[in-house]
């Protein structure tokens, strides 16, 4: 039996994606050398890279999307030209008149009677009923997934598989952390959705065990980020394009670089610094379908859009011209003490506690500063700290961690991303689609809300109802926590009325939910 079960629990759950089922031996391996188990992944060459057949580069995906949009446009134009009466349907106007209470009641009664006759478990049937709020036109036949949807699912599956098969999963957890720190949202539009996966593969993964400054530069020059935060539209007011088109700055990316990516609120910058940085990075854009500036879908510096002249950012004057000006600013703020503090705090909060131990934050901040933002050194310092092993497991697993850990425990070989994507949507963490540029929340309160807990239970029950037949819940509990499992949890699992119920309770147990 394990030598140190509690430390194994920390190794697997706090740092990783949980123990795999079957004959993985994860728990025993973690218990025999907890720190070594976590750190071994850090030393594998290119541990964070994700390259496999079927995953295309950002320019290739950009071209595919541009072509797809071009085709649609041409089809529309053809319809318009032929003068067909079948004009593309326009958005139905919102109903102006407010339905009366009695009409709502009548409407609801009618639908409730339909509901009672329908199979309550058949979600699709339940969802297909006509909508009373907006009258639905007859349903068109289902469309095959387009290139955007196909790409998103392929990227999602690759990421889910990588996390499912990792030994500990520490490197994948680091990827998820940094990807959320530098998040984009696929909901921004077609380009963001088709690039969500390639952005993470190209801008985040290569630097997860590298240098922060390199990740920062790769992120801010990635077409997906430039699109997400509108920088491709920002023109220097005195640039040639700005003058010709009578347009100007958009501060969005510059602000989030300072507020969310590096210095943090209160990190010592002012509104003037935001505006100055916005000027500095005018011209940072990506080439479009026509490829006038470069190969479509690649980062390009458009000198015509760049605000000419020196800029002062946080007290320092940047005389450089061209893209070098922005790169110099980024390099400086990557090394700013506020950045070290901001990153160290977020890092410790993610892995250790909502209110992380100040001594740990101070040490991480020091390592970050001393190593010039070496992220492998940062991760190593975290694993080497005593706090990370001594702090009680009070954080809740995020929905992504919970679903991946469930799949790992049950030995699933993910071949279809849909169940994972659906579960993430339900639990409020839709993949690569946070509500704002600050990413998904990272506190226990956010994920342990009443509705979230209830939904986790429903999802656990559904997983268990499908997969609980052939398993021995007591063995699974040993794989999850061995003798670190509390007597209460062990008793609850053992006394369950069915294997399914036992599995649902196991998945909802503090041993499985907390990390």
């Amino acid at each position: 039996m394990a030598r140190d079960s509690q430390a194994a629990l920390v190794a697997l759950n706090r740092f990783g994606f949980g123990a795999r089922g079957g004959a993985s031996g994860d728990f025993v391996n973690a218990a025999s050398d907890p720190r070594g188990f976590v750190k071994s992944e850090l030393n594998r060459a290119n541990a964070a890279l994700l390259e496999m057949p079927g995953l295309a580069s950002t320019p290739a995906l950009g071209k595919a999307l541009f072509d797809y949009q071009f085709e649609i446009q041409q089809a529309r134009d053809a319809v318009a030209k032929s003068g067909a009466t079948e004009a593309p349907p326009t958005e139905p106007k919102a109903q102006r008149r407010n339905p009366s209470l009695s009409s709502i009641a009548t409407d609801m009664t009618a639908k409730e009677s339909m509901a009672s006759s329908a199979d309550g478990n058949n979600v699709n049937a339940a969802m297909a009923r006509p909508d009373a709020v907006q009258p639905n036109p007859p349903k068109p036949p289902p469309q095959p997934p387009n290139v955007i949807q196909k790409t998103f699912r392929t990227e999602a599956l690759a990421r889910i598989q990588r996390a499912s098969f990792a030994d500990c999963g520490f490197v994948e957890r680091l990827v998820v952390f940094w990807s959320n720190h530098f998040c984009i949202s696929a909901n921004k539009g077609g380009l963001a959705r088709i690039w969500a996966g390639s952005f993470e593969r190209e801008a985040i993964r290569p630097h997860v065990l590298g240098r922060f400054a390199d990740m920062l530069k790769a992120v801010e020059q990635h077409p997906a980020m430039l699109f997400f935060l509108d920088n491709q539209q920002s023109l220097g007011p005195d640039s040639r394009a700005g003058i010709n088109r009578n347009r100007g700055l958009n501060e969005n990316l510059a602000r989030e670089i300072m507020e969310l990516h590096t210095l943090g609120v209160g990190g010592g910058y002012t509104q003037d610094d935001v505006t100055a940085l916005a000027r500095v990075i005018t011209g940072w854009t990506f080439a479009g379908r026509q490829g006038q500036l470069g190969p479509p879908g690649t980062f390009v510096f458009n000198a015509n859009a760049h605000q000419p002249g020196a800029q002062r950012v946080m007290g320092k004057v940047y005389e450089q011209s061209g893209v070098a000006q922005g790169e110099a600013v980024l390099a400086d703020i990557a090394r700013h003490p506020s950045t070290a503090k901001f990153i160290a705090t977020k890092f410790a909060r993610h892995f250790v506690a909502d209110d992380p131990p100040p001594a740990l934050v101070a040490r991480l901040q020091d390592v970050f500063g001393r190593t010039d933002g070496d992220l492998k050194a940062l991760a190593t310092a975290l694993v080497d700290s005593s706090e990370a092993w001594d702090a009680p497991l009070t954080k809740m697993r995020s929905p992504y961690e919970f679903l991946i850990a469930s799949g790992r425990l049950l030995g699933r070989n993910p071949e279809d991303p849909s169940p994972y994507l659906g579960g993430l949507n339900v639990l409020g963490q839709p993949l690569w689609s946070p509500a704002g540029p600050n990413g998904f929340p990272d506190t226990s309160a956010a994920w342990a809300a009443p509705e979230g807990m209830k939904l986790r239970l429903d999802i656990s029950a559904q997983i268990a109802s499908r997969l609980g037949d052939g398993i021995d819940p007591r063995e699974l509990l040993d794989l999850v926590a061995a003798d670190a499992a509390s007597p209460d949890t062990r008793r609850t699992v053992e006394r369950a009325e069915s294997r399914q119920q036992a599995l649902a309770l196991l998945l909802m147990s503090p041993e499985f939910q907390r990390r």
Partner: protein
Amino acid sequence: MQCCEGLRSQAASRRSLLLGGAAFAAWAYLPKFARAADGGDPRLVVVILRGALDGLATVAPIGDPEYAGLHGSIALRPDGPNAAVMLDSFFGLHPAMPEFARMYRAKQAAVIHAVATSYRERSHFDGQDVLESGFAGPGRVQSGWLNRALEALPRGERVTRALAVGPTTPLVLRGAAPTVGWAPVALPQADDDTAMRLLELYQHRDPALVSALTQGLQLEKVAQGDEMKPKPGTNGIGAMRLVARGAAKLMAADDGPRIGALAFDGWDTHAKEGGPVGRLAQLLGGLDGALAEFEGGLGDRWRDTVIVVATEFGRTARINGTEGTDHGTGTIALLAGGAVKGGRVISDWPGLKPANLYQGRDLAPTTDLRAVMKGVLRDQFGLADRVLAESVFPDSRAAKPMQGLIS
């Protein structure tokens, strides 16, 4: 792993994504208070617009000579196609809000203009913290002003019906006073026995999770009516209506919640904001529809209802280089409901001349949003000035409750 089988269709996942941005939560108790004098049974809904609403585009100061130049290509006009609906001789309402215009004419809706919280920086997240926490500045706070107001109300019967959308409670309603909510998710549910066993385990092993799960389980009891489940093809705008519609239905019930909050995302219009039509117009149409859903769904209770719509800050007076607006300061708050003393735009208008703009770029705030909220809470629920100035909105003595918002 096999979960959420039924949610694999594109329509379903898109629906869930969109609803992720819309949340409703309510106080778990009926207030027991004395407005017995007039037999009223007051209701309050707080609607948070996250992302910073462009107040100058929603209720445009068309009479200000600077406005058309500052808002440029997206400025509203008093005439021509898609003209603004003039609320008085100075302010014009965005044409995407005909329901609000109708309520305004019926004296059941009002606008407070050039309003802001006490926050003067430009971070959404800090700005929302201040808006929702009710504290004078940002910081890690655990409770919202509406929740602290509830704590000051005498607690009556337990609410047996409630709903919320989205797995989290908005900060404005988070805190010590218990809240309930519900998410309209079509998902086979865990049976009661499993839930009870899990609760027992948490009681022994993880007490912090007991209350969350208990509440989560109670919510579900009510709102199982299918009519609240969004349907495929529902867009973000439709989602706003659906959330409001479900909330209104439960708030209309005699044993339903009286005080609730919901939040709509997506108001951060940095680029291509659009004028009378376009992106902001669509969002405003959704908000307008949500207000109409409340009016229809609350039925007779509309008479006693106040809906307050607020946002974390405004946007720049001058449009930026991408036909949008950047983070600003002064903006609007909207009031709607049968209990509102409406038909007015309440504003100490600061003017839009360069010298009058806050930091030379934003509409200068002349009204403290806390004064509006305090006025509503005092007149709707009889909360004392002292409670409002100390525990609900700490350190807000200077922002006196606004008089006469409620009829």
